[in-house]
Every structure is written in structure tokens, then in C-alpha cells.
């Protein structure tokens, strides 16, 4: 322990201290908890929480981690699934990402996530770490990531702030994805003033694995060791939570906490290779990436998905900033970290692989049979909780919702301009519009060749990658959304988004199998936004049922609004399809003279 940590030890809020000082004030409101949530924590624990416990509950019960506003609606994705739809599902909703059987013993995992707000604050790093986060989700399923996609929404193209966001975000996605060696096989670029103060940066990653390699985030087997590896833990992502610095009641000032996180794609690339070697050598029992809520999330989820408890010594965490308090360490969202559970016999093998890749690691503790998650700080207990209460039994809200009063007016507002007289000029104008024109200026900044398996990428409507070089087995993916349709009718908008992605995959020649979605909305506390959300989920779940494809995972991003004005409801839908041989793929354009053109459908 560093001298600094030592000096803080005697000021730490232990469980014993919490019991002895029931009246102690804690900054629950500053950490984003409501009074009733805070009271509930006290009821669960039978005492006031310690500072560290408060940190854990506050991040794990946040909207972002607990889905407390969206959960009641998202259940439809499970409720409306039939057995036939589940036929190809190896792992469904609830894990880091869903896993789909594509035949011949191969499986694919994919998921789309948002990194909207961080990308507005610092476009390059926000977008970069967004890619990093979704890729870690894919690794933690036991898969090798094989491609990324990036559906984007920006404000008006001529707004003074748009250039900063567009160039930063596109460069950040490229900078991170290119450095990881992941081909970018598609995405979207849409400009609309409604996203001005709130661009949407969604990132999708897809990974490939053999059935037997599936790894889950659970800690089981009493006596198994718990290890944290990858980057060191810094004060990243705990900005607003630095109120917790007071938890140490320490006179020495804590150093500043970073306002944004900086990605280290090199560290992540090494982490990917290192994890794949761990999987190949079968030396990890369970694994979890560290994303939002960092160690709080990883320990409580691993423990609560397992069959026992977990005991962790927090001073073992390798720190980038030695002034971090225990609560801050638990909340830190430093990138490029993973946590794993390893049997004692495999410890040496694990360490050898870490050393080969020069990845830092530290043994934090072990799996126990107590059913409790116990975290100590130099031997003093600072967390003693039932991990389920942190990870799974968070608050659930049935937020009120109602159809927006303005909707009738907007729907009635028909388009009634004159027919253009000069069709040629009209077509050219359309093609030159920012949302219709070629996206080469974006896609040229992304590597689409790396890994050598890209069968379709830009300018095609679906990206296609080969999975098995011997047989040509492969997958197609498309992501689509139309915020304007959803604004006019969220139920139909969601159905149309799925239909478009499904069509794009089907017309490439693949058989659509599964869906991942990222639901970007305004504040759930606004009943009109909540209605949009409810309608969207209902629409998507119904459409999935009609088309026979299950939602395997996804992400909800709420509070996308500036000054009380929400973005258009934007459900980004990703559809994954399978090819028995990618040689059969069909591109979107015409390639040869003399081909006949047919228009199908209505």
C-alpha cells in the first residue's frame, strides 16, 4: 500500500463505522439517487450504506446501468418471442451480448451501443471509447471481434458546431477501430437540426466464436480467484461523483478528476489477443468487461450471476492515480480493463499469457460460498452486500406516458409543394443533399480490408464478412433507423427501421436471423417521450414477431435532449443474417451493362 493510501486508511468509512454512525450524512443526491432509492438501500442493508456501498448502488442503479425506466417495456422482447424464433439463439438478452448459432459449430455475437453524450463533450475520444466499449462486450462473450459499424446522427450541416463534431467523431471511430484491426463494414450518416446539441454516436461490433468457446459473466466455484487486468484504474468517468472524495474525510486534497476519458486502442488490441489466448487455453471460468460502473458492475454482476459470493481486496487494484478513494475506484470507468475468474490451478498459465502480452494484472480476491459481495480496504470491510441487490434488483419505474398533444398537428401537416418542373435538377439536388450524397468522405477514413474477410462494405446497404475461410460461411449486417418516421409515428417507425435493416440483409442474399437495437430517446421523465419509447418497443417487438427474428440484445440511451427539446425518437436497428457461402452475396448497385431492372413490391 502506498503511503498515501495508508494515511487514508484510518479515515475510511467501514461497515463498522456505518453501523456506529447511523446519522452520518451521505451525498446521495449528488450521486443521482432519489430519496426513496436511498431509503431503499438502507432497508436492504439494514443500516446506512458506507461511502463505497453508496458509490456502487448509485452507479448500478443509474438509468444507464439499471434500465429502471425502460425495463417494464423491454420485457416485450422476451415475451413476444416464440420457440421458433429462438431456434438459433445460443445466448439471449441479459448477457453482455446475444449469441446466434450460424451452423457448422460457428456462432456470432453482435450488439449496438451508444456513446452519445461523451461524444458531444469530446468528439474524438467520445467516439473512440464508444467503439472500445462495444468491442469489449464482444470479447467478453468469448468471441474474436471481426467488424464494426457506426450509425451516426449530427445536427444541421451548416451549423458552426457541426464540423467539430463530425470530424472529431468520424476520426475517433476510425482512429480506434482502425487501430484494433476491425474492418468497418457500414453505418449511417444523417444530418438533422434536432440532433444539434445531442449527436447520436452508436457503434455496433460483431464477433465470431465456436460454440464451445462461449464465455459468460459469472463467478462460480468457491476458491476461484478473481483478477483485474488491462489498463490501470484512473479517475475516469467519475467526474460528478468526486463528491465522494469527501468520503475519506481527508485533509489532503484529491487530485483533479478527468472530465473525459482518453482511449488507448493499442491497449485494447493487446487485450483482445490476450483474451483470445486465454480462451484458447481454457484458463478463465468467467469473464466480464469493465464499462459503465467499472468494478462495481463487474464484481456485482459476476457474483450475482454466479452461485456464491465474492471477496475482494480493493487495495490490490493497480492505480493510475494514487489519490483515488475506495468509492471512486469502485465507480471508475477507466477503459481497456477486464475482470476474470480463474481456478487456482490455472493461475500460472494465466500469468504466463499476461506476461507474454505485457498486460498488467492484479489478483483482487476470490469466489466464496457466502452469497455476499465483500470488499475490503486493507483488511477493513467497506462493502458487505447481497450482489443481486446491486446488479439485478434495482428500482423499476412505471413512468407515466401519454400520446403527445402535438402529434395530430404534425401528422396532419402534409407535404404539398408543387411538382418540380425540372426533374433533372430536382434529382441532382436530391443526390447532392447531405443525407443522400456519397458517404465516401466518411468511409474512406475507415479500414474495410483488414482481416481479409470483407465481402461487402461501402457502398453496399449491408456489410458482409466471411466467417469460415474453408466453406465461405459468413454473415451480413445492416443498421437502419429513420428518426423522422419515428417522430411522426413511433410504432410504425420502429417497424420500418426493422423492415429496412431486414430488407438490406435479405437482398444481400443472407437469411436474417437476429436483431440488436439501440434506442436513442429524450428524457423518460417526460411522459410524451416515454410514450414514444413505449410505442417504439411495442412496434419493434411486434415487427420482430411478424418477421420471426428475435432481439438478442441492445442498449437504451435516454436523456438525449438539449434545453428540454428531445431528439427524434431514433431506434437504431441492426439485423444479422447468415450466408452458407458469401460468394453468393449480391451488391446493391448495378455492375454490368445490359442488366434488366425490375421493381419489386408495392
Amino acid at each position, binding site marked *: 500500500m502506498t503511503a498515501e493510501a495508508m494515511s487514508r486508511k484510518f479515515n475510511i468509512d467501514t461497515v463498522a463505522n456505518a453501523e456506529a454512525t447511523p446519522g452520518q450524512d451521505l451525498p446521495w443526491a449528488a450521486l443521482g439517487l432519489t430519496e426513496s432509492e436511498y431509503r431503499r438501500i438502507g432497508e436492504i442493508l439494514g443500516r446506512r450504506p458506507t461511502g463505497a456501498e453508496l458509490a456502487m448502488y448509485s452507479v448500478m442503479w443509474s438509468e444507464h446501468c439499471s434500465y429502471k425506466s425502460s425495463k417494464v417495456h423491454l420485457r416485450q422482447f422476451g415475451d413476444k418471442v416464440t420457440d421458433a424464433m429462438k431456434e438459433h439463439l445460443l445466448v439471449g438478452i441479459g448477457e453482455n451480448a446475444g449469441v446466434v448459432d450460424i451452423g457448422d459449430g460457428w456462432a456470432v455475437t453482435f450488439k449496438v451501443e451508444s456513446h452519445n453524450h461523451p461524444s458531444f463533450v469530446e468528439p474524438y475520444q467520445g467516439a473512440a471509447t464508444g467503439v472500445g466499449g462495444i468491442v469489449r462486450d464482444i470479447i467478453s462473450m468469448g468471441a474474436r471481434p471481426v467488424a464494426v459499424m457506426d450509425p451516426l446522427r449530427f445536427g444541421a450541416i451548416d451549423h458552426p458546431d457541426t464540423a467539430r463534431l463530425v470530424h472529431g467523431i468520424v476520426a475517433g471511430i476510425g482512429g480506434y477501430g482502425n487501430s484494433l484491426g476491425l474492418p468497418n463494414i457500414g453505418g449511417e450518416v444523417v444530418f438533422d437540426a434536432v440532433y444539434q446539441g445531442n449527436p447520436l454516436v452508436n457503434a455496433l461490433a460483431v464477433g465470431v466464436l465456436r460454440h464451445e468457446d462461449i464465455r459468460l459473466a459469472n463467478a462460480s466455484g468457491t476458491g476461484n480467484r478473481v483478477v483485474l487486468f488491462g489498463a490501470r484504474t484512473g479517475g475516469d468517468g467519475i467526474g460528478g461523483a468526486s463528491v465522494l472524495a469527501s468520503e475519506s474525510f481527508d485533509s489532503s486534497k484529491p487530485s483533479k478528476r478527468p472530465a473525459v476519458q482518453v482511449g488507448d486502442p493499442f491497449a485494447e488490441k493487446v487485450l483482445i489477443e490476450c483474451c483470445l489466448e486465454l480462451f484458447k487455453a481454457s484458463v478463465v471460468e468467467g469473464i466480464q468487461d469493465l464499462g459503465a460502473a467499472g468494478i462495481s458492475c463487474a464484481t456485482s454482476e459476476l457474483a450475482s450471476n454466479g452461485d456464491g459470493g465474492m471477496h475482494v481486496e480493493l487495495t490490490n487494484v493497480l492505480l493510475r492515480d494514487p489519490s483515488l478513494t475506495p468509492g471512486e475506484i469502485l465507480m471508475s470507468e477507466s477503459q481497456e480493463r477486464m475482470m476474470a475468474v480463474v481456478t487456482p490451478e490455472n493461475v500460472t498459465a494465466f500469468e504466463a499469457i499476461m506476461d507474454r502480452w505485457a498486460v498488467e494484472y492484479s489478483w483482487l480476491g476470490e469466489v466464496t460460498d457466502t452469497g455476499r459481495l465483500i470488499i475490503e480496504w486493507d483488511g477493513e470491510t467497506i462493502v458487505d452486500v447481497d450482489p443481486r441487490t446491486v446488479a439485478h434488483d434495482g428500482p423499476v419505474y412505471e413512468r407515466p406516458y401519454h400520446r403527445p398533444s402535438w402529434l395530430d398537428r404534425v401528422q396532419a401537416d402534409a407535404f404539398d409543394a408543387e411538382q418540380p418542373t425540372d426533374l433533372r435538377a430536382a434529382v441532382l439536388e436530391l443526390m447532392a443533399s447531405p443525407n443522400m450524397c456519397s458517404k465516401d468522405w466518411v*468511409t474512406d477514413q475507415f479500414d474495410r*480490408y483488414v482481416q481479409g474477410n470483407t465481402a461487402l462494405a461501402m457502398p453496399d446497404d449491408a456489410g458482409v464478412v466471411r466467417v469460415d475461410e474453408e466453406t465461405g460461411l459468413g454473415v451480413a449486417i445492416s443498421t437502419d433507423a429513420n428518426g423522422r418516421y419515428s417522430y411522426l409515428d413511433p410504432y410504425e417507425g420502429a417497424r420500418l427501421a426493422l423492415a429496412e435493416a431486414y430488407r438490406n440483409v435479405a437482398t444481400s442474399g443472407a437469411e436474417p436471423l437476429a436483431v440488436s437495437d439501440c434506442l436513442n430517446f429524450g428524457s423518460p421523465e417526460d411522459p410524451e417521450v416515454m410514450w414514444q419509447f413505449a410505442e417504439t418497443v411495442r412496434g419493434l417487438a411486434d415487427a420482430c414477431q411478424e418477421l420471426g427474428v428475435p432481439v438478442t440484445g441492445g442498449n437504451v440511451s435516454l436523456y438525449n435532449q438539449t434545453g428540454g427539446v428531445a431528439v427524434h425518437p431514433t431506434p437504431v436497428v441492426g439485423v444479422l443474417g447468415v450466408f452458407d457461402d458469401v460468394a453468393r452475396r449480391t451488391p446493391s448497385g448495378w455492375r454490368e451493362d445490359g442488366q434488366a431492372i425490375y421493381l419489386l413490391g408495392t
Partner: protein
Amino acid sequence: MTGNDDGPLAAVRVGVVTFPGSLDDRDAMRAIRLAGGSAVELWHGDHDLQEVDAVIIPGGFSYGDYLRAGAISRFAPLMEQITQAATGGADALPVLGICNGFQILTEAHLLPGSMIKNEHLHFLCRDQRLRVENADTHWTGEYWAGEEVVIPLKNQDGQFVADNRTLDELEGEGRVVFRYVGGNPNGSRRNIAGISNTAGNVVGLMPHPEHAVEAGFGPDSSARGEVGLRGGTDGLGIFTSVLRKLVG
């Protein structure tokens, strides 16, 4: 998709070095196999070249391209072996550096010049037309001088620079092996895309021939006429060149 296993080429062992952050290593190995040779994995931290007959230093962002592309990798233990084996005349070990590999070779002083940020400061991925200026190196024997090829280019620090004396020397000795045609994509001096050492066994180039070796997964065009969707395989000759050279 395996290459020709039985021919004499299959006996040629070509090593591909993986550094932390290498990305196109498995692609280079695939290219060797498709050309009919045997690919051997090499690890940057080893001291043993495993008796390979040639070495490819692949593309990627070794050590994140932090500091300078290739700057940290050149100190790898295996680079010492490669440097030793690659210097010493026409019988020396053939070495090909692709993109990041080229950058590593310049940092290791096996090739002159250096790469700086693209003139436009962006990462650029595109299908690039090149002219093979020298068909006598170990890696270009299957082409003819003046032949054009289309090969993917993808990098951020691809602008080749050197002082005028070095550039004149490269030109005078025929050591400019590849030149960009149809527009300079990154500001490289004299449109240089690839160069060799004096003996012609060490070649570095920025574009990625290993991504133009398999129909269906390559560029959409070829300099040799119409090809199918992603059908360009103009890069394969680089790999067959070294294999043929080595079997004599």
C-alpha cells in the same frame, strides 16, 4: 482456399512477424498460402527466426503507432536477427515490409527515408493504382517493369520523405520499386510508394498487396482488365515472386 500444397513452392517457409498491435499479420500469412508457400508465425519477442527463407513484417499499428509509427517495434529482439540476416548481399534474407512493416524497416535503418503524416492529415483507405518500377527485386520478379497494379492503400502516416540526395540515389540505383499513379494519395516525395535496399532483398511499400490476393475479398478493380465484385488480385505476384526466387 489453401494454396498449392505439393509444389516446390510449398517447401518455402515465409515468416510473418507479429508485434503487439500488428493487424494484418494473419492476412499476410493467408497471402503466402494462396501463393503456394508455407507461412510461419514469428513473435517479436523471440530470438529465433525458425529457419525461415523470407520474412514479412506486416501492417498494423504496432505499439499503437505511438511516438512514431514503427519507432518502438524496431527495438524488438527479433528485429535484431532480421537486421543481421537481411544485410549482406544478394543471398541475404528477403524481407518485405508492408505499411507499418515499411515504417519499421525505415526506423530500423534497413531502408532509407521515413514516413510522416499524410499531407491531408486523415487516415485514407482506397484502392490505389501503382506502377512497378523495378521488377528485379526479390519481391517483384513476377511483374514487368512499368506494369501497373491496383492494391488497397490504408494508412494515416503514409507520406514518404527523404532528403534530395537520398531520393536521387534511390532513383539512380533503380531502388524506387513502386510509384503511385493516378494521383498522389498522401504527398509522398516523387510519388514513391515503395523502395528497396541496394541488394533488392529488402523491400518496403505502403499499400497492402496482401489485400489483393483473393477474388471476392480484394479491390473492385485491377490494372489488368475487368474483374468481378472485389475481384482484384494484383498483389498476389509479390508473394509468388519471392517464392519463385527462393526455389531458383
